[in-house]
């Protein structure tokens, strides 16, 4: 019953987010600030993780393709497919659920604890629109981060293949171009957009409706990360079945 109540409350929150919008000049500033905080501020970790994940995928694929009848280009092919279909959109989203999600929950939760949200409500500001809407819009930039993640992941794979001696550059690139289906990129971006909405709104929900003090802010951040990850994993399955199944 509690879960059902929470799901209902989440969707009511989403409806409230789009009501009674904040003045555009203020909203524009908030959106730009959130893009800087949520997307630009996460690029370092996204690039770092993507590069090494790409490298690891390449090494593991190369080590498992030990038959002389299998062409080395398959290493590039497997790296491309793994990175584009799964690692860049899903793995990065789990990382973002931790980094951005806990930031969102703790910042909104702290505002709740210190009565800043009450102050907005008393002034007649739609606090949900003011706090959550800019995050949703900022997270629409997330597919660009995932595109960079895809590129860097494949680059990491190429570096590992070539400098690790697992495949020559030409073979690896040939594999990257093998049987390329552009819908796989579309599928990855559809997933990313759905995940971006989840990453912006679920942690906001946990922060906005939290009760208690500083300790509860920490607990809310942890709960938010767990639930955001769970929802991402479930939606990943559902979307894959719907779009590729």
């Amino acid at each position, binding site marked *: 019953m509690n879960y059902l109540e929470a799901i209902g409350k989440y969707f009511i929150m989403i409806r409230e987010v789009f009501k009674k919008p904040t003045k555009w*000049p203020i909203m524009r500033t908030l959106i730009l600030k959130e893009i800087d905080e949520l997307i630009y501020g996460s690029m370092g970790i996204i690039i770092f993780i993507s590069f090494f994940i790409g490298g690891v995928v390449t090494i593991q694929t190369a080590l498992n393709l030990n038959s002389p009848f299998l062409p080395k280009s398959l290493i590039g092919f497997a790296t491309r497919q793994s990175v584009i279909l799964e690692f860049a959109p899903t793995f990065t989203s789990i990382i973002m659920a931790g980094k951005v999600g806990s930031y969102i929950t703790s910042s909104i939760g702290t505002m709740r604890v210190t*009565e*800043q949200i*009450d102050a907005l*409500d*008393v*002034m007649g500001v739609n606090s949900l629109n003011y706090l959550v809407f800019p995050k949703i819009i900022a997270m629409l930039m997330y597919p660009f981060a995932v595109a960079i993640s895809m590129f860097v992941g494949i680059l990491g794979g190429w570096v590992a293949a070539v400098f690790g001696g697992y495949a020559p550059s030409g073979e690896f690139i040939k594999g990257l171009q093998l049987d390329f289906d552009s819908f796989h990129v579309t599928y990855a971006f559809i997933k990313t957009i759905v995940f971006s909405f989840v990453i912006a709104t679920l942690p906001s929900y946990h922060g906005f409706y939290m009760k208690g003090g500083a300790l509860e802010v920490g607990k809310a951040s942890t709960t938010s990360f767990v639930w955001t990850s769970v929802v991402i994993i479930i939606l990943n399955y559902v979307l894959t079945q719907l779009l590729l199944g």
Partner: protein
Amino acid sequence: MIEVDNIHKSFGDNHVLKGISTRFEQGKTNLIIGQSGSGKTVFLKCLLGLFEPEEGKICYNGRVYSDLTMNEKRDLRQEMGMVFQGSALFDSMTVEGNVMFPLEMFTKQSKAEMQERVDFVLKRVNLIDAHTRYPSEISGGMQKRVAIARAIVMNPKYLFCDEPNSGLDPKTAILIDNLIQEITQEYNITTIINTHDMNSVMEIGEKILFLKDGYKEWEGTNKEIFKTDNKAVTDFVYSSELFKKVRQMYLEERN
């Protein structure tokens, strides 16, 4: 003026407000006092429109809150200023940003006009050199003054303060009390203060409402509170030896 007529508010089985009726006059500092759990905060939140009572009505200069449309309620909210117990300043904004915030949100003033108004109210609360500082960089007393400046920047008709001098040293607490009283009289605002501070009761309580277990137990002025023989009030207000002596001296002086 705010008139409250027989309001009831419950949370589940917990009946918090049990038929409170009173009137808060314009241009006066009205104080709500009572023990923890007496319903002060819920009552204040009802007055602010954050909670809607199940029964009774609250009337703001003739406008009954429950009869207003959503837009009218929003307009009414903009006539209210609130000073929170912990100041509730936006910690991502400077002092100037905090005070300017309501103007940016709700007016069409130019940047220069807003700046002029912000400078004026900050000067009014005796904060001149704090414009570019963040709430975390200023003292508790200064934070309260910024909160007051933010609350009055829109020229409110109603000012609500939730324990405005809690956590402050006695000298700063008196300064804040006096500032609120001065502003109330200067701008002819209906000010309602939720407090535990007996100094405030004695100093600025032009009207005092004493709540007990969700009921209105007593109301009167800071002069009348010396003379009352209501046991609940005297037990609460004169719980310290110091205040007992103050009361005794006051009564002896009058006799």
